[in-house]
């Protein structure tokens, strides 16, 4: 029995036991359901082994939505605990675990897969390619992300969740102060999904540089593709720093090294520096693709081309450079000199300039445009003022002298939620609504969508604006309770109501999906939004090979040219199309990585070594494998094309 004791949760509560039962029942239910309906073969052939960028994108999308609800449940619990003074729903340890997992899940396992979903779904279509450069590597990226996400999510029922905050600062995250295996989960689950992110970065950069349609020069790429390109460049340069930091954190915890300790030459602040050298670029990895989506949506629904294309690209390049030069602003109060703080203050404020350029470009795109207030456009219009408030409070935080007042208060919490929710989450929901018809063949209901938007916006303002005030009044973040005498009670109650409205908004989004599956008309054509770029030029839903003939491009709005100016997109004869073969190896590697990660977390060395050998065996297998892909022949293409309305163009 002693062996199994390590898997017990150190701070059990009825809620955790209930979760265990619920997880058990859901897993049994899913396995039983799939077996009963005989869907294992279908799942394996169509999804587990797929290398199709569209299917991988959809899997990212579903995972991101699931994780949104996991992270959202954490958020509701936190707001409930703080909703009035001296609440006792959660104890201190449980509260620590919940704010930690909320942060990690939302950033690493919700926002990242959400942007990867759109990169996978949209980028190859926007550049007129048939898949990404390395389709199988793409599948591996997804399964590594998924293995990491599952590993992280079992932490709260097996062994205990991480409790040192999503920043996991040492020495708090060291063995002395973080005694459960929780922080091991943090180190290893993020490591596994981080390797996947790095691979996606390499894959997307290569795809965008080498696989664009004939005529599409770099400055004729649609804006979302530009934003994805820059975000992936940041990924390739930022993630290796995290890899090393996590490696050092892991060895500190598992092998008693002295990287981030306070004795024998260890240096705890090095973690904080490495973490934010990755962590600050990370927030731009999330926000730039969001900006890209807004650019597409605002231009489409203003019926105008994007204002200031070149300055949009230039400002993103500038943001990507500056993003690596600001990390110290996350710990102004932690002992650098005034000179260092001042330099980082200036670089931080400088980021507001290119961001401001983008805001004005969006406004000028709308100016004198014929605006259609669809759901994606509502999110985009809501984003501009709300995000600007978040940006301005960011400039306040950037003033290092004033930061001594703001640091680690609810003011900071309000600020970063104010950028991430209207910035990233709104963009993801806008993108979800905008691209849904392209991949599923029907629209989401506009009326329910508008309800979701208003509930979410009002809920957001109610939940987070009060935190600016309580933060300035001195309410510290991560504090699990407060006394009545502080006077924080009423505003925190307001936050709780806001959080509840947001939760209702997310439920209406799920309801909308279910409602639309049942009720939406299916004959929507290729271009339901009257859009402008190439992804709308192919059929809906998109055939496996994306384009029967590769498009010819002459501007950044090739499809608009084709619709309005008589530009010929598709010319020439049909030819055989070369496609990659499916493979089960990425899925199996995901499982082996999961086993390896789990074994490392609990220091089970025998299975860890076996699993590592398994990983290398898979790589060796891949080296020796001969895989030339397959061809879809002209006859087949003609058959598929004729199934779509109007036949081949």
């Amino acid at each position, binding site marked *: 029995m002693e062996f199994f004791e390590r898997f017990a949760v150190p701070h059990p509560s009825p809620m955790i036991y209930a979760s265990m039962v619920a997880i058990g029942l859901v897993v049994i239910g899913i396995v039983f359901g799939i077996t009963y309906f005989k869907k294992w073969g279908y799942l394996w052939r169509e999804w587990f082994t797929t290398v199709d960028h569209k299917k991988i994108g959809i899997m990212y999308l579903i995972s991101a939505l699931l994780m949104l609800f996991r992270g959202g449940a954490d958020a509701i619990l936190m707001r409930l605990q703080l909703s009035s003074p001296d609440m006792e729903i959660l104890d201190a340890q449980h509260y620590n675990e919940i704010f930690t997992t909320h942060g990690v899940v939302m950033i690493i396992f919700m926002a990242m897969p959400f942007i990867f979903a759109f990169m996978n779904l949209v980028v190859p279509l926007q550049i007129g390619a048939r898949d990404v*450069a*390395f389709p199988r590597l793409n599948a591996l990226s997804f399964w590594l992300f998924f293995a990491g996400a599952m590993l992280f999510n079992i932490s709260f029922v097996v062994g205990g969740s991480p409790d040192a905050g999503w920043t996991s600062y040492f020495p708090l995250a060291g063995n002395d102060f973080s005694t459960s295996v929780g922080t091991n989960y943090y180190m290893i689950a993020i490591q596994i999904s981080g390797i996947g992110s*790095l691979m996606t*970065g*390499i*894959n997307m*950069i*290569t795809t965008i*540089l*080498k*696989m664009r349609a004939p005529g599409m020069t770099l400055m004729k790429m649609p804006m979302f593709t530009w934003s994805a390109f820059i975000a992936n460049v940041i990924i*390739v*340069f*930022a*993630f*290796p*720093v995290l*890899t*090393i*930091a996590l*490696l*050092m954190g892991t*060895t500190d915890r598992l*092998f*008693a*090294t*002295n*990287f981030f*300790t306070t*004795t*024998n*030459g*260890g*240096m705890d602040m*090095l973690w904080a520096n*490495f973490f934010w050298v990755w962590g600050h670029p990370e927030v731009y990895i999330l926000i730039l693709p969001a900006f890209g989506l807004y650019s597409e949506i605002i231009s489409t629904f203003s019926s105008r081309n994007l204002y200031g294309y070149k300055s949009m690209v230039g400002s993103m390049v500038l943001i990507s450079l500056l993003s690596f030069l600001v990390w110290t602003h996350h710990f102004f109060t932690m002992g650098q000199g005034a000179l260092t703080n001042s330099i980082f203050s200036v670089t931080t404020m400088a980021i507001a300039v290119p961001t401001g350029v983008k805001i004005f470009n969006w406004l000028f795109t709308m100016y004198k445009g014929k605006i259609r207030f669809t759901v994606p456009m509502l999110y985009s219009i809501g984003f501009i003022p709300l995000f600007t408030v978040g940006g301005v409070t960011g400039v306040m935080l950037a003033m290092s002298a004033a930061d001594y007042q703001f640091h680690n208060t609810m003011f900071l919490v309000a600020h970063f939620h104010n950028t991430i929710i209207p910035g990233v989450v709104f963009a993801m929901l806008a993108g979800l609504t905008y691209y849904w018809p392209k991949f599923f063949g029907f629209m989401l209901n506009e009326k329910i969508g508008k309800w979701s938007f208003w509930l979410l916006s009002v809920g957001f303002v109610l939940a987070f604006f009060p935190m600016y005030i309580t933060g300035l009044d001195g309410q510290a973040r991560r504090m699990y309770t407060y006394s009545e005498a502080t006077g924080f009670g009423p505003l925190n109650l307001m936050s709780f109501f806001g959080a509840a409205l947001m939760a209702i908004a997310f439920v209406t989004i799920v309801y909308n999906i279910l409602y639309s599956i049942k009720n939406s008309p299916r004959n929507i054509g290729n271009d339901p939004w009257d859009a402008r770029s190439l992804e709308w030029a192919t059929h809906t839903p998109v055939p496996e090979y994306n384009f029967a003939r590769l498009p010819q491009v002459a501007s950044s709005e090739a499809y608009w040219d084709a619709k309005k100016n008589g530009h010929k997109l598709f010319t020439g004869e049909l030819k055989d199309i070369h496609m990659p073969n499916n493979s089960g190896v990425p899925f199996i590697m995901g499982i082996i990585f999961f086993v390896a990660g789990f074994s490392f977390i609990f220091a089970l060395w025998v299975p860890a070594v076996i699993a590592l050998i398994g990983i*290398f065996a898979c790589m*060796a297998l891949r*080296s*020796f494998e*001969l895989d*030339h892909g397959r061809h879809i022949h002209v006859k087949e293409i003609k058959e598929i094309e004729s199934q779509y309305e109007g036949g081949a163009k």
Partner: protein
Amino acid sequence: MKLDHTQPLEYSTDQNQLNILGFWIFLGAEIMLFATLFTSYFIFEGRTGSGPTPAEIFEITPVLIETFVLLTSSFTIGLGVHAMRLGRKNAMLTFFGITLLLGLVFLGVEIYEFMHYYHVGATYQTSGFTAGLLTLLGTHGAHVTLGLFWGLFIILQVKKRGLTPENANKSFIFSLYWHFLDVVWIFIFSFVYLKGMM
């Protein structure tokens, strides 16, 4: 598979070109990885706690042997790729074989070096300095070890299937990797060993 005969064999198909560009980007990520390791080493260099200092544990002889064999192996793999472009399969295999042998010698000496550190009391757990040093050297050494297996697999494939565009592509990419490890070693030699011994 369309072959473009104006290009060298390793660049001759579209997928080959993608693979090479993708690998260069991967090497960009590797540069960041090692840059992070070097940064941490420089920070930990003087933070020896109660453990030994760099000058107390570094020995010049094994380091010189390692440097010599690794630099030579970078030259021999260059000859290997040259032979490949001339279509001389046996010469290529010989040079690749020599490269891997030299890599193996490097690894052997590095293992000796690690045992030496262990015996003089500079273990992984001793201090910030030893942890930083062994992680930097260990990551490089792990790359070399992986390279030995990878190179062996490529030799076997070229032997079995000949100089196909695919194999030429793999061999060329492997040579990029091997040169990169050599470049990293030059930095380790200069900024870890020489600096530490001066």
